[in-house]
């Protein structure tokens, strides 16, 4: 087991990601952020709160998207029970930033984009991930905002711990 990001590094990385978003989207008047259920939500909650601190804007549109019904492996394993989708605003014509914790094969993001399009036609979609496991992609999907890049093999696992649920902020690579 190897620590990829410890508490301090993780929080500095989150600050950087949030500032990069502000750099590109300024006051978020036409940008919405959407976390992907279940694990992307911990990251998107943090980013949303940092964005509010940085911009001073309390009403940034922030939603949560569950992709269960859009998976490409519905009948290849156990049936998944969905988590909540909460998108209480229109995404039509707006810039969407999708947020997930770990980007691996890219299949989740493919599903997320399909799910997203059923809510309307966004002006653009960007992707933010905390950890990019490059070289393990099975679809042509690349992130726009990356917290940390790692080279991994398929048998390894990346685990992200969040203080809110795990009592610590840390990202580790498990062999």
């Amino acid at each position, binding site marked *: 087991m190897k620590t990829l990001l410890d508490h301090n590094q993780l929080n500095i990385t989150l600050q950087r990601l949030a500032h990069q978003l502000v750099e590109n989207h300024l006051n978020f008047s036409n940008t919405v952020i959407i976390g992907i259920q279940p694990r992307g939500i911990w990251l998107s909650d943090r980013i949303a709160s940092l964005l509010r601190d940085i911009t001073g804007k309390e009403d940034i549109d922030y939603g949560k998207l*569950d992709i*269960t*019904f*859009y*998976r490409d492996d*519905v*009948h290849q394993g*156990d*049936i*998944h*029970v*969905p*988590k*909540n*989708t909460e998108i209480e605003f229109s995404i039509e014509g707006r810039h969407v930033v999708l947020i997930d914790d770990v980007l691996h094969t890219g299949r989740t993001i493919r599903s997320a984009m*399909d799910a997203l399009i*059923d*809510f*309307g036609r966004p002006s653009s979609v960007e992707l933010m991930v905390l950890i990019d496991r490059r070289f393990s992609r099975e679809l042509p999907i690349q992130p726009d905002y990356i917290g940390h890049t790692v080279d991994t093999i398929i048998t390894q696992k990346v685990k992200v711990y969040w203080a809110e649920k795990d009592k610590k902020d840390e990202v580790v690579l498990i062999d």
Partner: protein
Amino acid sequence: MSLSVKHLLGIKELQPQDIHTIFRTADNFKKVLQRQIKKVPTLRDTTVANVFFENSTRTRISFELAEKRLSADVVNFSASGSSVSKGETLVDTVNNILAMKVDMVVMRHSASGAPWFLANHIDASIINAGDGINEHPTQALLDAFSMREKLGDLKGRKIAIIGDIMHSRVALSNIFCLKKLGAEVVVAGPPTLIPKHIQDLGVKVEYDVKKALAWCEVANVLRIQLERQNKPLFSTLREYAMFYGINKDMLQSLKKEIVIMHPGPINRGVEISSDVADGKQSIILDQVENGVAIRMAVIYLLSGKRDLVE
């Protein structure tokens, strides 16, 4: 594993956890149904046959819409106009449909127990859409789901089921479902329409409908099933309406506002008056709306239990 069962034959076989899983999934499908695009691609690899040996409007349309909104392929079969009239047996009929690569069967049949019989003879998952006077599980699930929307958790809540308890599969499935969710249940109606020993299911019996209404938070009013009554069990419909029908005056005499439900089809002016059925306490059309979400949830959750053919 998502549900503890391969088929949805009756509520009797479900664990309370199964019911909660179905509700959580239906919550999400309900949100899908409120969107502009009311459809998800989830079951585009699945074919469902709706096999109806008995008449139906709501249930059949509701199942068909649920299947289509899950992107499943749908075939419909009704006994009238089919080879059933030429003497084909139930198992043969269904096996012939399954031979055309159908994955799930939704069946309504006038014989109680027909879906259990079928489950012993075929491999596909079966959803019971009503069997005789036995069970109608998806109706009970959508009823409880609608109550939960109004009241929250049903544990300890007071539900009255009023009317033709004897011939109603909705009543039996409702009793099983509500008891598993921890609700208190009273059945009310004329003694001839309440089966003996029904107390063994953990429900109380009340012959005075007004008392049942005064006690309950939700009244689920059932249709008088004249087509299943082969001997007179009350003198006239008018007399039934006078003593057991729910009308506006009765509701106004209560010191509280209760929720009124009915699984349909309604005999207006018999078990329920029009001003009650269409009144603001009635959630009859919400039940119909929720039916699609519940059936989507059941079909989705059962669709996983198939023997993978590689």
